[in-house]
C-alpha cells in the first residue's frame, strides 16, 4: 500500500470513534501492541527528548530498499500515535517518505499532539523520520 492509502485507511478507522476517550482507548491499544524496541537501543543517540514525554526512534534500510522503523515512548498515548506513524512510514521507499505530505493526524483530530509547545517528542520524531529517509536516499545514490 502507498503512504496515502494507509493514511486514508487510518482516517477511515478513526471515523468510527465519536468520543474522545474511545479514540484514546484505541491509541492505548495500539501503543500496547507496538513492537517494543530493546532496552539496549534506548540510547542517548536514539532518544528524542521532549519535556512531557520521551520518544526513541531507530531506523534501518532493508535489502529491498525500503525503510524499517522501530520506536517507543514512555507515554502510552504518544506511543499509540507512534504506532500509527510507523504503520504509515514502514516499508516505504525513502523517496516516498520525503515526498509525501502527512495529513492523517490532522484529519483524525490529533494535530494538537504535534504542536511544538506540547514537547512530547512527536514533532521531532516526524522530522527525524524524514532525516533518516533523506540520509538513506543519499546513501542509495
Amino acid at each position, binding site marked *: 500500500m502507498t503512504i496515502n492509502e494507509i493514511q486514508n485507511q487510518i482516517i477511515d478507522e478513526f471515523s468510527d470513534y465519536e468520543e474522545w*476517550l474511545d479514540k484514546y482507548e484505541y491509541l492505548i491499544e495500539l501503543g500496547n501492541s507496538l513492537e517494543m524496541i530493546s532496552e539496549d537501543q534506548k540510547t542517548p543517540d536514539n532518544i528524542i527528548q521532549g519535556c*512531557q*514525554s*520521551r520518544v526513541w526512534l531507530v531506523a534501518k534500510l532493508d535489502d529491498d530498499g525500503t525503510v524499517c522503523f522501530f520506536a517507543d515512548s*514512555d507515554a502510552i498515548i*504518544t506511543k499509540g500515535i507512534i504506532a500509527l506513524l510507523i504503520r504509515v512510514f514502514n516499508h516505504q521507499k525513502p523517496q516516498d517518505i520525503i515526498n509525501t505530505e502527512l495529513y492523517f493526524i490532522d484529519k483524525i483530530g490529533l494535530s494538537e499532539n504535534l504542536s511544538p509547545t506540547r514537547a512530547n517528542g512527536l514533532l521531532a520524531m516526524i522530522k527525524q523520520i524524514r532525516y533518516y529517509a533523506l540520509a538513506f536516499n543519499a546513501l542509495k545514490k
Partner: protein
Amino acid sequence: MNINELRKDFPILSQKIYGHNLVYLDNAATTQKPQCVLDSVMKFYTVYNSNIHRGVHYLSEKATEIYENARLKVKDFINAKSRSEIIFTKGSTEAINTLAYSFSLKYIKPGDELIISEMEHHSNIVPWQLYAQNKGAVIKVLPFDNNGELLLDKLESLITEKTKIICVTFVSNTLGTVNDIEKIIKKAHEHNIPVLVDAAQAIQHLKIDVQRLDCDFLALSGHKIYAETGIGILYGKEKYLEELPPYQGGGDMIKNVSFEKTTYAELPLKFEAGTSNFVGAGSLHTALDYVDRIGIENISQHEKQLLDYATNKVEEIGGITIYGRAKNKVSVLSFNVDGAHNYDVGMILDKLGIAVRTGQHCTEPIMTHFSIPGTVRASFALYNTFEEVDRLVEGIKRAKKMLVG
C-alpha cells in the same frame, strides 16, 4: 464565603470544554481573572490610556496616578516600609533576573557562594547560574526530604563566610510545601547574609508581611493572584536597592544622560527601564483589592479544605503516589497514577474537561530527587468547589482504568 456566588465573578469558568463543564485546576500556573480585573483593563484603555510619568497632559497624569497608586497598594499588601522598595517587573522571573544580575555585579566575586534550595523553580536557579556562577560563584544546594520538607538543620553547615545570598521559595509550585521562611531568614541574618524569597506561589494563598518576615528581597507575579499577565514585583530593602546597580537601561530609569556619564533615577524608577506595564499594574491593584474584599485568610481556609478533601479522595482510589507530604502545605496536589505516565493521565483528564498540569513543572531537580519523569499537578484556587474535586477523582479513576486496567 459563598463559592457559587464568587464563581460568577469569573466568566471563563462557566464554559464547556469538550462538552463538559470546565474544571480549572491549573491555578498554580495561572489564575483566572475576575470581572473587575477585566473591567479595569477595558476602562484603562477606553478612558485613561496614555504613557506614564513626565507627561504634562491630563491623561498622562491620570495614567501615572493609576500606576503609582498600584505601587502603594502593593506596598500596603505586603507591608513594605516605603514605595521605593516596590519595583514593577513583568513577573517574578524578571524580578529574580533583575536581582541576580544587579546583586552579582555588585557583590559576587570568584569563589563566593550562594545557597539555593533543591525545590526551587528553574526561575530561581538559572538566573543565578547566568550571573553569579558565571562570575565564578559556587551554588550550594539546601536539600529536602521525601516528604518535601527542607532539611533546615543542614542550613548551618552550608553557610560559610563566603556565602553571599540565600535564595529560597516560600511555597513549592510542585510539592505545595510552605517553607519555614522565617527560620531561614533568622539563621541567615545571624551571619549577615541577605535572603531572596520567591513568593510567586505564596502571595495568592498566604498573608505576606515583609517587615515581619524581615526578608531582604521578595519576588511576586501578578497573574498568580488574579491580575493580568506581564506584571510582577521585586521587593527589596531600600538599603540594598540603593546600592545595587540598575539591571536594564533605557527611559524612565535615568536622571541625566550624556555620552560621558549617566546618572540614574531615584528608587524605584532606577529599576524600571522602558515603558512599564502600567495597565497590568492597574489590574494588579484591582486584583489585590478583590482579594482583600474576600480576605486572604478566608481564601486560604477554603483552599486548605479543598486540598485535604482532594488528598483523601485521591488516596482512597489506591495505586496513586502523592508527592509532597509536608505538614504545612498550600493547595497543590502532585501525584502519579502508578504504572501510568503523567502525560497520559493529563491528556485523558483534559478530554473530560479537567485542566491540570503535567510534567516537570519547571522543577527538574525535584523530579530527579524522586527519580520520576514528572507528575500530574492539580492546584486549587478560591473559586474551586468540592464538586470539582469529585470530578477530578472520577477522572483519575477513569484514566487509571484506561491506562493500567
